């Protein structure tokens, strides 16, 4: 009987073989056919850490550091990986209350349980060591090192700009950025973002189930090293900038100083300003709020964005256009008996001076009548069919001289200013129903006209160069001190013949030697200038001055605007003159003037 059962061994053997074959098939499926496990394994153990390269530094023209980097540490969290942690201990370590902790964890979880988010920004240096040491106790948390910007000198906040966290919109547009990354927001930090940021690197690190780093994946074969950002070397003279900011203390307005031979911006001041270090670090939000709410608008970059009527400085423009249009000559004389009659009893007033004046003298003395008459001649030139055409010819010259448009500098926040188009007057007066008299205020830089201080300085460069300019820009070299910025190398021609500029220069020289700018005359330097007193419907007149020096081979052009300060000669001229003295001679000897200006405060009433 027992013999029969020996056949059963085949059944048992079959069962063994069937099960084993099943296993082999299953293994084949999950190991060879289904590739998803490999991916899951990598996700388990391999984490990609981003290496943030150092952002490029920014230097002034003498190699002085304007912007550098400091390491800060953000505490990041991946909510899903946070298991069984001693919350109380972590709160103690970070010095935050438990309810804040819970709030942040909730926010992180809502953002994503799988993707890391910032838990604590910029842990102070003193805390970093302690936290890093104990971090192994808290799976799911890790530290991300970052750099923030620091400014050794509290100057040039507007021009240098600031960096901040990248917005969702940018992340969507440019895949280079991840949430929490920093990006240049204003100034040259923004303009040269791609150059300054370098390129992020990638480190593949193996982590175990307890969130401990276990070494580089494949010895770093798959790592991509970070590429450091390139440094920027600017035209800015830190000492000059500092000096300009001191001069403008207590006043609102701006200074723009340019080297006409290169278009390089030597200094650019917008007052009131602020210490750029305020917008860095943990107190950034608080400080920003205070600055935004400040009625004097320190964040507003007046040099690029404030639009003022140029006042008498605009006469230079008309003088050039008049010559170019063939209606004005160096010896063109107009008489002035205290004003230019508009008809109907209205007069454009002028101050007392000799009469008649030729072109050079008209600049020196700044005669309004002269320019009203010249303007009329320009607009109602017989060679044009009608006033409108004449106006449009005039306007296109103005545009060519850098007004009414952005100059295309590397400071991103330029505004174009406003040179009104014919349509504006059509609307006001009716089509073809207006003549030069209706728009005569344009002759002396008043009325519906607005320019920015940058454009004014650029005008100075045009005159200094006798007819052309480089777009004003601040960065000279990129990467190394002798690697020129490839942009802004194209000379822009204004279309005004260079022969017409000599008389203008002479006139401007006379302004300082014996004219409206006499008070700022220097013995060591032959400086040229033009005063401007811009009428301001909202309050006191603005004080303007445009200057360059020395007369032969100008090295520096300065435009100054001081809001609500009255005559150009009183405030703007001394500031411009002191700036030029400081730049060219390296020191200032006119101490009285300097003290008056530095200690001078203009009272502003804010609505």
């Amino acid at each position: 009987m027992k013999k029969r059962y020996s056949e059963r061994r085949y059944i048992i053997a079959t069962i063994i073989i069937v099960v084993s074959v099943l296993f082999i098939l299953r293994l084949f499926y999950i190991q060879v056919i289904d590739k998803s496990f490999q991916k899951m394994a990598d996700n388990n153990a391999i984490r990609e850490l981003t290496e943030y390269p150092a952002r490029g530094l920014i230097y002034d023209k003498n190699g002085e550091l304007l912007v550098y980097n400091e390491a800060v540490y953000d505490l990041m969290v991946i909510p899903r990986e946070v298991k069984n942690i001693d919350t109380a201990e972590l709160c103690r370590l970070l010095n935050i209350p438990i309810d804040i902790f819970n709030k942040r964890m909730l926010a992180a979880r809502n953002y994503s349980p799988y993707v890391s988010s910032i838990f604590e920004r910029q842990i102070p240096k003193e805390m970093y060591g302690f936290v890093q040491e104990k971090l192994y106790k808290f799976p799911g948390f890790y530290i991300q090192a970052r750099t923030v910007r620091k400014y050794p000198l509290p100057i040039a906040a507007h021009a240098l700009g600031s960096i901040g966290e990248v917005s969702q919109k940018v992340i969507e547009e440019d895949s280079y950025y991840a949430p929490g990354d920093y990006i240049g927001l204003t100034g040259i930090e923004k303009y040269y973002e791609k150059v300054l940021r370098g390129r992020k690197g990638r480190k593949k690190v193996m982590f175990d189930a307890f969130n401990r780093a276990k070494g580089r994946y494949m010895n770093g074969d798959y790592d991509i090293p970070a590429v450091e950002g390139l440094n920027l070397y600017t035209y800015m003279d830190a000492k000059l900038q500092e000096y300009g900011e001191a001069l403008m203390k207590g006043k609102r307005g701006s200074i723009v100083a340019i080297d006409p031979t290169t278009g390089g911006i030597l200094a650019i001041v917008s007052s009131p300003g602020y210490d750029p270090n305020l917008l860095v670090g943990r107190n950034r939000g608080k400080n920003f709020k205070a600055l935004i709410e400040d009625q004097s608008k320190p964040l507003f970059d007046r040099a690029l964005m404030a639009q003022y009527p140029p006042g008498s400085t605009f006469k230079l423009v008309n003088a050039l256009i008049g010559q170019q249009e063939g209606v004005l000559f160096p010896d063109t004389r107009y008489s002035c008996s205290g004003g230019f009659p508009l008809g109907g009893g209205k007069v454009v007033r002028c101050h007392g001076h000799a009469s008649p004046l030729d072109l050079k003298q008209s600049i020196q003395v700044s005669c309004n009548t002269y320019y009203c008459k010249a303007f009329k001649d320009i607009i109602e030139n017989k060679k044009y069919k009608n006033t409108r055409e004449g106006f449009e010819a005039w306007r296109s010259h103005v545009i060519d001289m850098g007004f009414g448009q952005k100059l295309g500098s590397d400071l991103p926040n330029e505004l174009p200013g406003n040179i009104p188009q014919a349509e504006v007057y059509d609307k006001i007066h009716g089509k073809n129903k207006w003549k030069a008299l209706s728009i005569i205020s344009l002759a002396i830089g008043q009325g519906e006209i607005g320019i920015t201080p940058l454009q004014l300085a650029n005008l100075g460069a045009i005159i200094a160069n006798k007819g052309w300019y480089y777009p004003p820009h601040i960065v000279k070299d990129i990467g190394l001190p002798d690697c020129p910025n490839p942009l802004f190398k194209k000379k822009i021609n204004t279309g005004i013949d260079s022969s017409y500029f000599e008389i203008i220069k002479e006139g401007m020289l006379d302004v300082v030697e014996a004219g409206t700018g006499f008070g700022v005359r220097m013995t060591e330097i032959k400086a040229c200038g033009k005063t401007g007193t811009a009428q301001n419907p909202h309050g006191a007149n603005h004080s303007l001055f445009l200057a360059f020096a020395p007369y032969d081979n100008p090295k520096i052009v300065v435009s100054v605007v001081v809001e609500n300060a009255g005559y150009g000669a009183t405030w703007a001229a001394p500031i411009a003159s002191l700036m030029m003295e400081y730049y060219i001679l390296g020191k200032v000897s006119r101490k009285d003037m300097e003290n008056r200006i530095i200690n001078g405060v203009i009272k502003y009433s804010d609505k």
Partner: protein
Amino acid sequence: MRESHNFVGKIDWITVGIYLVLVIIGWLNIYSTVYNVQQGSFYDFSNDFFSQKSGKQLIWITTSFLLAFIILIIDSRFFSQFAYAFYIIAILTLIGVLFWGSETSGSRSWLVIYDDIRIQPAELAKVATNMAIAKYLSTINIRMEDIKTKLIAFSIILLPALLIVLEKETGSALVFASFIFVLFREGLSGNILIILFLMVLLFVLALVMNVFLLIGVILALALLVFIFMRRRRKEIISLISIVVLATSFILSVEYVVENILEPHQQKRINVFLGKETDLKGAGYNINQSMIAVGSGGLTGKGFLKGTQTKFNFVPEQSTDFIFCTIGEEWGFIGCAVVIGLYVVLLLRLLYLAERQRSVFSRIYGYGVASILFFHFMINIGMTIGLAPVIGIPLPFLSYGGSSMWGFTLLLFIFIKQDATRLQIL
């Protein structure tokens, strides 16, 4: 045929060879799981060596070799003669553990002998039970067909199993179910196997699909059978009773799962059936295990290069989940080789068992094959998601002194039996 004069006998070196290969593979993989990537020295024979698992396993292996050696020297009749004695000792030890055992993670299954040295009596009980069953069923005039025989046989098997269940080691207790193959070979009706299989099937189906739908299917099948069968009274009664049994079984499944099973057991079943994706507990084990194995690809990541097992993603990676290391580091080819080795071993054991002259030896041999097969099937099945998580070791590969001794004893007692098979009078 020349009679062997040496008292050792004619050892089957194929079996011994496979044993050695598996033991070595096991040791290499245990070494890999404790290998520290950053320190990375192959020869870590510092003082730490024996405090690590790889060092300790070496101790278990060498002591097992010692045990094997002793067994091969002892007279083979020693085992059959003292089978019952061993069985009683095993039972007593199992009872002893219940009172004096040290508790670890929910189960009370270890006996502390001295300080750090502990054993799990359950592992040794398998050997003793195998001997007892072999002894009982080889007794003259015992026939499997008799009801009395069946009852006693089941009792011999059930007693230690129940004691182990009381230890809260249900997984180890389940191993005793493997004796069904032994009984089957000795004459137990194959229907029992089929019924058991169907019960497992219904159990799974009842959990996975709508209970009433399932009953409906059973009724439909019964109807079909009814239409096509002979309408004899006896058969109709059988049919109806089967339907009733099946239905009540199905209905009871849910009750059993919810009220009789422990929560972690419920979870493991649910996770296995895909009703739950518990990514933290039981589900985590299986998930990580499959990731580890699956990520091995065709040829594996290479010795000592498995990231999942080395970085503690797979729990119990040197014991219950040792196969993961093989899967991750040696890939499909490695797995196929290991499975192949086991299959050869098991089939070889069947072959050896059949050529035994002594009934005791044959039954014992089948016991060895059945127990090893059960471990093999459940353990590997578990790591690749084909079986619920039941914590039982992979023979010769898993880390652990008790299991290494247990399996070595189990195997070598049979090797000895086989070696002296021609000396039986």
